[in-house]
């Protein structure tokens, strides 16, 4: 249910943006292939993960939980498919935990870093990394986090986590990181 709502809200956000576009008087053809999946995530069918966040005893989380390997808040990195910026279903729980923590702690601020692998051009990757950071921010916002608590920066392919050029290294580099 919740994911469906997210999808609807995200789509509304997109429509609003598209509305802004036409108001700015630009005559570009915006009809082709709107990348709807970029913002909405791909977890619409994954009902199981959608309802779990409230049951985690989140109110007991403290700042220390961020550094506790047993806490769901310990994990601050999520990964993306090649050239995509949709939140994959397996990472929604991580983000929901952080969303709960952040909305309970409105004075805590995070920076969402967006990263890409080394394929493709550098400036395009900066933009792609920002899309990933935006997707995370949108997800967290829809989960109740105040926009003022979040800033974003995209490093594109400039700060790889893994230095290899094999598939596994590249997958490790296509990521968004929540920096507290």
């Amino acid at each position, binding site marked *: 249910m919740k994911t469906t709502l997210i999808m609807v809200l995200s789509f509304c956000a997109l429509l609003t943006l598209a509305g802004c576009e036409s108001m700015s008087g630009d005559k570009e*053809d915006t009809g082709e292939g709107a*990348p709807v999946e970029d913002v909405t995530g791909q977890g619409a069918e994954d009902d199981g993960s959608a309802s779990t966040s409230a049951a985690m005893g989140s109110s007991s989380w403290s700042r220390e939980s961020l550094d506790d390997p047993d806490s769901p808040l310990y994990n601050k990195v999520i990964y993306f498919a090649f050239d995509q910026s949709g939140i994959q279903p397996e990472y929604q729980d991580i983000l929901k935990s952080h969303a709960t923590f952040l909305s309970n702690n409105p004075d805590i601020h995070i920076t969402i870093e967006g990263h890409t692998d080394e394929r493709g051009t550098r400036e395009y990757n900066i933009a792609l990394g920002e899309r990933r950071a935006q997707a995370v921010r949108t997800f967290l916002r829809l989960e109740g986090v105040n926009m003022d608590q979040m800033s974003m920066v995209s490093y594109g392919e400039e700060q790889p986590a893994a230095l290899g050029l094999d598939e596994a290294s590249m997958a490790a580099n296509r990521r968004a990181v929540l920096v507290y």
Partner: protein
Amino acid sequence: MKLFSPNFPVSVRSIFSARIVAMLLLSLLPVTDALAELTIDITQGAEGATPIAVVPFGAPAGLQLPQDVAAIISTDLRRSGRFKPLAKSRMISQPHDATQIAYREWQALGMNHLLVGKVSPDGTNSYRIRFQLFDVYKREQLTGFTITTSRENLRASAHHIADIVYEALTGEKGAFDTRIAYITEDRSNNKRTLTLNVADSDGYNPQVIVTSKEPLMSPAWSPDGRKIAYVSFEKGKPAIFVQEVFTGKRSKISSFKGINGAPAWSPDGKRLALTLSRDGDANIYIMDLVSRRLQKLTSHYAIDTEPAWSPDGKHIVFTSSRGGQPQLYRKAVSGGKAERLTFEGKYNARGSYSPDGKSLLLVTRVNGDYRIAVLDLQQGDMRVLSDGRFDESPSFAPNGRMIIYGTRSGRKGELAEVSVDGSVRQRLSLQQSNVREPVWSPYNRRQ
């Protein structure tokens, strides 16, 4: 010359120390802190290149020259792919002026052209170079000059002579006496250092102009070759700086919320196209560099980035994901509709115009590999010029005959040059560092 305190993550330098630079006739000034030079490795030679003999230049006995002028000229001509210089060992004689030339000898060696010259001292640390280019069959001089230069400028003068020879024989301007800017990355002791460098087009005389621990990217030469715009993450987020190459003086010209990237100078040097996401989505803007006023060129929820100007300054080509994947589009600077330019393949990005405006240099994906290609804007056909897996950042020489780009050798970043017809290839590498994002300068300021 550091403009910031040592604990600041960035240091900015002028190329020429704190010296006030006079723009003289032959004006590459001394190396202040040369680092490891890029080494050139010609990996593929041209067939059908014109034979030419570049005879070692004469010098009075006892004169120690810091540079072998003829060797520099010879290497330049070979690098162009248009010429095949004769090996020194095959020369029967080594004339230094017209009276010493036995034309039949050079004809027998299959030479079409012959370059001879001599270097003589002209006061302290100053030289006079006299050179003459001959047509071996017509037995006549095609061109010849005497130029005065300094010890420090001897290399630059050799490149200048190569340019004169190249132009005399091909009718096209040479681009040897030009420079390249590039980024290097060092990872040692778990510390990362990034530098923005400027070197001669053959990799010699490298000079660091910016050092940072945070990413540096997207260097772009101003059309007069005196400034470089670049992106620096030195404050933890991207900002665009414009730095004077000779003085090290710089100013931050864009640090909006979100992306500040992909700076590109207009041909008149008065405006900068750039990518900003201050309104939420990556879009192309044009900044007037005097008033700093912004014009929003594109306004689309997809990614728009990597702007490049047409040589007449009327159009901007850019990468956009509006069709679902990155493709190149063109839009008039005055506004209007964006026109899609690339249709072949699912990834075409970072377009830039050839100096004559007739073709676009770009990065394209071929069977999962990222390669450099040239798109003919009239015919619409695309030629792939590189064969790596991660090739990127292509840049035309100002005469449009050579392309420099970033490639990988294993994990390591190197630079590669390829002639526009694909016939000649060479690699430029640094022993220690990764090298990437090369950009070829405009013609030297003497022109």
